[in-house]
């Protein structure tokens, strides 16, 4: 069998299994992020009633397009303090693998409808 065909076949066969076992960026965001960043990603989650620093509005394309994917990844994996922001933005390294965090970064780009600088 042609090498490429084989790869495509393997991908096709394993795709449904992947879809079931792997959470999408949106699912991960809904599980871990909306509690503070809001169900629409606008920064007004259920936890913001008494919070001292407001969570970033992920739909703000102006602010979000000023951040590289690497910066977003770092803020998510190691928390706000790793990017000189508030400790109220927790680190998520124990909740998600790097691949999962990558998917969340891609989902953030959908939310802001914007590109990295």
């Amino acid at each position, binding site marked *: 069998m042609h090498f490429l065909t084989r790869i495509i076949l393997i991908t096709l066969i394993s795709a449904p299994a992947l879809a079931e076992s792997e959470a999408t960026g949106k699912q991960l965001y809904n599980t871990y992020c*909306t509690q503070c960043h809001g*169900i629409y990603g606008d920064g*007004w*989650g*259920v*936890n913001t009633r*008494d919070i001292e620093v407001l969570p970033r509005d992920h739909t703000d394309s102006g602010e979000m397009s000023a951040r590289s994917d690497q910066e977003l990844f770092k803020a998510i994996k190691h928390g706000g303090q790793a990017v000189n922001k508030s400790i109220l933005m927790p680190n998520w390294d124990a909740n998600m693998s790097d691949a999962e965090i990558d998917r969340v970064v891609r989902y953030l780009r959908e939310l802001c409808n914007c590109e990295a600088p």
Partner: protein
Amino acid sequence: MIQPKLFHLSTVTLLVGVISGFSSPALAEKTAKQFVETNCAGCHALSEPESSTTTRIRERKAPDLYYAGNKFQEDWLIQWLQSPTRIRPGGTFFGQNVVAAEDRDIVPKDKLPEHPAFNASEAEVAASYLMSLTPYDELISSTAYVPKPISGAMGRMNFTKFKGCVACHELEKGYGGISGPEVHTAGSRLKPEFLYSFIKNPQAWAPKTFMSNLHLDDSEVQKLSDFITTLSKE
């Protein structure tokens, strides 16, 4: 929400149990197991789920009880099951109950059903069974935590400003985040070792849960645990 029809322990079984002081432990255990499976399994996981996924976290109806014996204080269980109060102001998973209001997302009170209440003998029977569910003995026995008195003001600063725990937890009724369990009652609800161990490594207990592991060192976990324990004594 539909409340499952509650199965009451037959008076006979109870009488037998009371008179004999549950002298037949096997029978008592079987009855307790049956009672909990009938009345609680509709909402709570009583054995470890086959796989932990974020979907399960978002969709489960109630907190897991399969490690209840490693987590709770038995006295608290017996009291709470007779007159349950809310523990998670946003519900088991806030996402099931959240609505976007004008200012911010909120969880309307009427979205959260009351927990079923049980009579004293039922509560004791259920608690005794829950206390037998101990798959994480290892996590408890490897935790050497002795609560110490701590300055309330310092503890509070630590919980709010320095560690940011307040973003997800109420440290007094009506103040703090609502997605996590309230912590002002945690000292009387939880085993001290569980409290400590969960802060140290939440994923060891609940792999996909939505609390982060803040990678705190032992002395930081000690201070936070002491603060939370103190809150319950006030």
